[in-house]
């Protein structure tokens, strides 16, 4: 399957497609925390690097199968998600944003000094086991589970935390538990994406998982529409492809990024697809004419 695809698709495009797939996994993770439950997390790159380093070190030093390595990376990230989620999610307000920024920095500095992770030089020669079909498969599973979860009553309870936490509690929603659970799931997906990324890139270094990476993923979620799965996917596609087109203006790329977000916030404050529902689209479509029986 992969051999066929590498034959058919140009390597450059294939690379972009695979990166889009990995970014979708990452962004859907952040979407759960920030988009759905409304807890601003600005350290997604921290979870990504935990997953990336765990997976990279395991695949360099052991002969474990790739799936196990990926899950180990994701579990490591989820574990840290729970550890920092429990104290900070019990509080109301934006504590989580500050805690997660700090956490991501700590993780980055840790890997800068981590012997096994190659310190500032990073890790090279990671076996490339991430292929198109693996990314595609995992992405589809992640999207599917996201859709079923968010359409269930538990999903609605998650949205209710964002909408009004006091009312959610009055409706019997255990908000603290769900927030921590959601944060852990987001971290899990962050670690999963990180593992895939490490194994795709051959090489990782602490610098790649800095604050800008967190903001980049956050941008994807915000651009697409907080809490919307199709929105997040659209946001990922746009923001992964946009830099390729903006290569011409290389150094000014971030300027364009910024301008794009400002324009977006003016015209679509809820993101591109944040307030679009299938039900509303269906209502606007012309209704099929009902054939009346002639009496």
């Amino acid at each position, binding site marked *: 399957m992969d051999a066929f695809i590498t034959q058919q698709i140009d390597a450059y495009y294939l690379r972009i497609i695979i990166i889009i797939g990995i970014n979708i996994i990452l962004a859907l993770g952040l979407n759960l925390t920030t988009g759905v439950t409304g807890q601003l997390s600005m350290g997604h790159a921290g979870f990504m690097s935990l997953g990336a380093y765990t997976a990279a070190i395991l695949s360099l030093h052991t002969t474990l199968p790739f799936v196990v390595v990926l899950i180990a990376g994701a579990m490591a990230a989820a574990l840290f998600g729970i550890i920092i989620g429990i104290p900070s999610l019990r509080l109301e307000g934006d504590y989580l944003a500050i805690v997660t920024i700090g956490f991501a920095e700590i993780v980055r500095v840790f890997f800068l000094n981590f012997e096994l992770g190659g310190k500032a030089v990073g890790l090279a020669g990671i076996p490339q086991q991430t292929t198109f079909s693996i990314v595609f498969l995992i992405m589809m599973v992640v999207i599917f*589970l996201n859709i*079923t*979860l968010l359409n*269930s*009553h*538990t*999903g*609605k*309870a998650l*949205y*209710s935390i964002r*909408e*009004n936490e*006091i*009312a*959610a*509690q*009055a*409706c*019997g*929603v*255990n*908000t603290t538990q769900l927030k921590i*659970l959601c944060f852990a799931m987001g971290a899990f997906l962050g670690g999963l994406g990180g593992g895939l990324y490490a194994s795709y890139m051959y090489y990782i270094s602490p610098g790649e998982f800095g604050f800008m990476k967190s903001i980049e993923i956050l941008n994807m979620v915000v651009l697409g529409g907080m809490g919307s799965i199709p929105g997040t996917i659209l946001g990922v596609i746009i923001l992964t492809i946009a830099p390729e087109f903006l290569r011409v203006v290389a150094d000014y790329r971030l300027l364009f990024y910024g301008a794009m977000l400002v324009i977006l916030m003016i015209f679509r404050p809820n993101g591109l697809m944040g*307030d679009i*529902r299938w*039900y509303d689209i269906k209502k606007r479509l012309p209704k099929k004419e009902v054939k009346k029986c002639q009496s």
Partner: protein
Amino acid sequence: MPILKLSDISMEFGGLRALDSVDLSIEEHQIYGIIGPNGAGKTTIFNIITGIYKPVKGNLFFKDINLKNYPPYKIARMGIGRTFQNIRLFQKLSVIDNLRVSAHGISKVNIIANMLGFPNSRREEKQIMLKSGQLLEMLGLYEKGMELADSLSYGEQRRLEIARALALEPALLLLDEPAAGMNASEKIELIDTIKSIRDNMNLTILLVEHDMSLVMNICESIAVLDYGRKIADGDPASIRNDEKVISSYLGMGA
């Protein structure tokens, strides 16, 4: 045996004593009203019953369970539903999804089953949809089921809050100024709704209200608060003639 019993409840905010040794006893199947001037502590009582505030003194029992030791979500799951004075709906969720949040509160299916769409979760989901539909029909919101909550009119939003509280299958329903901002005909409709809810769903209703005609009309028992103290309680007729109540709240000729 009373379904809800508050004994000697006191609440303080900083130095301000919002409630001072309040006793209340609400019998099953009653419609019980709490009235009083602004700032008398009516909403504070609701917030204490639902666990948002913990009282500084006193105990409160719901069917023999001391609510003091439970967080708000557990109190809600025990069967105490409430509405809010300033409407707190889940604005960006559809009307039916607002009810599904409450259904989640009392759901027995865990998150994994929900995520993977196990048969038991699907079955439950179908039941929830059916039940939510019935509730919406009862409150005249069925047609609006798929609209977003923030697109509803004010009166509809108030009714949706009641529907959402009922989706918890409560034994006790707390209504915080249900008639606020309603016109005369809407109020008459509301009176019918509250009575039919109580009779059809076998509930006890505790309500806080400023509108005397509504309170005198539907409440079987009334407590009057003033500056955090209960100054009177009893049936509507005796409250109407109580001198303390007249001087502090009702005024002459009420």
